[in-house]
C-alpha cells in the first residue's frame, strides 16, 4: 500500500485522539443483557427506499429496553462493511450481495427476507421496443455484480438473446439509469423501483417485462443480514429484531397508505410510489423454496464468474428465527 502511512496515521491519531469529542455516540451502545432493565440501543442499516423501509418502524415493535437507530446507505457494499466492522447489528442486503460475501468466507447470515420483486425492464417510451426480443442490437444499462445484472441476463437468455453477442450491455450507475434512458444514452435498462415507475410516470419509459421466473430465481430480492457472532453471542437480540421486522412488515402490508406516505418522505413523489407499489413486495418470511431460489441465483452468479465458488447455503441462511417468530405470531 503505497505510503498511505504518515498522513493516514496522522489523521487517525488525531481523530482517535480527539475521540472524546467526536465519539459522542459511536461506542456507547454495544449490546449487553437486555434483561437488566436499562435501555440498550442497536443500529440497523438500510436503504432509504420504499421496499427496504421496515427498519424505520422497528421501534414500534421492539420489546421495552431496546431501542433502534437506523442508518441509511446507498450501497450494499458499504453496509456490509459497516456490519462486519461491528458498526451495525443488522442491515439490509441484496441476496446477490449476501451470496457474494458468504462465498468469500465472510461470517454473515441472512436471518429474514426484506423484500421481493422490485425489478423491471424498462425501454424508452415511443421507441420501437415492445418485447424483450426487440432488444437485439440495443444498448442496455446495468450495474455489474448486482441482482439486476443476473436477472437481466436471465431474461435475455430466456428470450433467445445472447448477452454477449446480441445486445450491448453498458455500465450505468443505478441512479443514472433514468437520465441515461431519457437522454437516449441507452435504449433500455433493468433496475429496481422506483426508477422504472419514475420513468413511466415522467413519460420517457415503459416497462416491457418483469424479470421473475418462478422455477428458478423467482422474485427474491433482499434480506436482513447479521454477523455470525451476533447469533452466537446474543441470539435474543437477533430474535427481537426479527420479530420487530416481521411485525413491521405485517403492519406496513396492512397499512399501505402509511407505508407509501412514509416512503415518500424519502423524496420519491407519492404517485410514483403508488404506481410502483404493485411491483414491490415487503417480506420477512423465508422457507426452503426461498433458499432454493437463492441457490439458483448463486449458480447463475458462478456461471457468470461473479463468484468463484458456491457459499455454504446452510450457514448463510438461518431459518430458525423466522420460524420461531412465525410460531409466536400465530
Amino acid at each position, binding site marked *: 500500500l*503505497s*505510503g*498511505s*502511512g*504518515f*498522513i493516514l496515521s*496522522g*489523521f*487517525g491519531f*488525531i*481523530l*482517535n485522539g480527539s*475521540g472524546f469529542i*467526536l*465519539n*459522542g*455516540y*459511536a*461506542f456507547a451502545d454495544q449490546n449487553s443483557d437486555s434483561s437488566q432493565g436499562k435501555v440498550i440501543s442497536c443500529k440497523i442499516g438500510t*436503504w*432509504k*427506499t420504499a421496499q427496504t423501509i421496515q427498519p424505520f418502524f422497528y421501534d414500534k415493535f421492539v420489546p421495552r429496553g431496546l431501542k433502534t437507530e437506523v*442508518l*441509511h*446507505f*446507498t*450501497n450494499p*457494499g*458499504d453496509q456490509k*462493511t*459497516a456490519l462486519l*466492522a*461491528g*458498526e*451495525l447489528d443488522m442491515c439490509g442486503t441484496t441476496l446477490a450481495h449476501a451470496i457474494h460475501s458468504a462465498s468469500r468466507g465472510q461470517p454473515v447470515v441472512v436471518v429474514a427476507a426484506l423484500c421481493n420483486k422490485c425489478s423491471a425492464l424498462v425501454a424508452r417510451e415511443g421507441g420501437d421496443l415492445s418485447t424483450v426480443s426487440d432488444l437485439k442490437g440495443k444498448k442496455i444499462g446495468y450495474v455489474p455484480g448486482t441482482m439486476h445484472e443476473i436477472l437481466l441476463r436471465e431474461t435475455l437468455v430466456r428470450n433467445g438473446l445472447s448477452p454477449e453477442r446480441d445486445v450491448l450491455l453498458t455500465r450505468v450507475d*443505478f*441512479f443514472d439509469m*433514468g*437520465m441515461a434512458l*431519457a*437522454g437516449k444514452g441507452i435504449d433500455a435498462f433493468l433496475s429496481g423501483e*422506483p*426508477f422504472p415507475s*419514475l420513468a413511466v410516470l*415522467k*413519460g*420517457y419509459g415503459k416497462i416491457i417485462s418483469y424479470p421473475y421466473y418462478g422455477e428458478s430465481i423467482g422474485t427474491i430480492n433482499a434480506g436482513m443480514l447479521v454477523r455470525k457472532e451476533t447469533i452466537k453471542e446474543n441470539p435474543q437480540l437477533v430474535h427481537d429484531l426479527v420479530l420487530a421486522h416481521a411485525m413491521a412488515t405485517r403492519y406496513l402490508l396492512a397499512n399501505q397508505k402509511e407505508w407509501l406516505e412514509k416512503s*415518500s*418522505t*424519502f*423524496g*420519491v413523489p407519492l404517485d410514483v410510489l403508488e404506481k410502483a407499489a404493485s411491483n414491490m413486495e415487503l417480506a420477512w418470511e423465508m422457507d426452503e423454496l426461498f433458499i432454493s431460489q437463492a441457490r439458483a441465483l448463486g449458480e447463475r452468479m458462478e456461471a457468470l464468474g461473479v463468484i468463484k465458488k458456491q457459499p455454504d447455503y446452510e450457514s448463510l441462511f438461518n431459518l430458525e428465527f423466522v420460524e420461531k417468530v412465525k410460531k409466536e405470531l400465530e
Partner: protein
Amino acid sequence: MNDRLIPWVLPFTVFLLWFLSSEMEIVPLYLFPHPFEVAQSGWSYIFGKIGDEPYAGRFVYDLAASCTRISLGFGLAVMTALPLGLMSGRNRFVHRLLGTSVDGLRAVPGITWLPLAMVWFGIGIKTTVFLVGMAAFFPIYLNSATGAREVDPLLLQAGAMMGVNRFNAVFRILIPAAMPSIVTGLRLGLGISWAYLVLGELTGVPNGLGAIIMDARMVGRTDIIVVGIFLVSVIGRLSDLLLKLLLRFCFKNAL
C-alpha cells in the same frame, strides 16, 4: 458597466440560457427541470415547514451539520498539511520522506477511502471528517511546500539575527512570507472540502447538504440536485470570502 455587476454577468447568462431552453423545451423538462420548479423546491427546502414535503425545511439543520463537519475536516487538514508542507518546502529530508507518498496518495479517489475509513473509524462523524480532511490535505500541503521553498533565505537570516528562534521564525517569517501560496492552497482546500462533503456524508450520517444531494440523486430528484449545486456554490463562495477576510485580517500581505 458598473464594476459591482460584472461578477453577475456569467451566472445571469447561464440562468437566461437555462430559462429559455426550459421555456422552449429544448431539453425535455423531465430531464432537466424548469428554473421555476427548482426555485420552488429550493424555497421549500429552505423556508418550508418540515413534513410538508420530502425535503421541506431541512436546510438550516443540514447547513449546521455540514458546517460543523467541514470546519472539523478542514481544520484537521490545515493542522496537518500546513506544518508538513512547510517542513517539506524547507527541509530536503522531509521532502524526500513524504514527497513520493503524498504524490501517490493525491491520485487516489476519495471514495475508495470510504470502506477503509469505515474499518478504521467506524461510521459517523469521524469518517466524514477524515474524508473531508483527506481531500483538503493535498492542495494545502503542495501549495505551502511551494510557498515555503521560495521564501527568500535573507528574510530568515534577518530574523535569526534579530533573535528569533527557529520555532518563532515559522510564525513570524516563514508563514507570512509564504502567504500568497498558502492562501491559494487554503482556498483550494476549502473548496474541495465542500466538494468532498457528499462523500463524507454518503454513509452513516442522517443529515447535511452532502447527504441531501446523495438522497436526491438516489431518488432521481434533479430539481433538488440543482438546488444543492446552487446552495453549495453560494455557501462555498461565502466560506471562501470568509477565509480570505480572515487571512487578510491576520496577515496583511495575504492577497
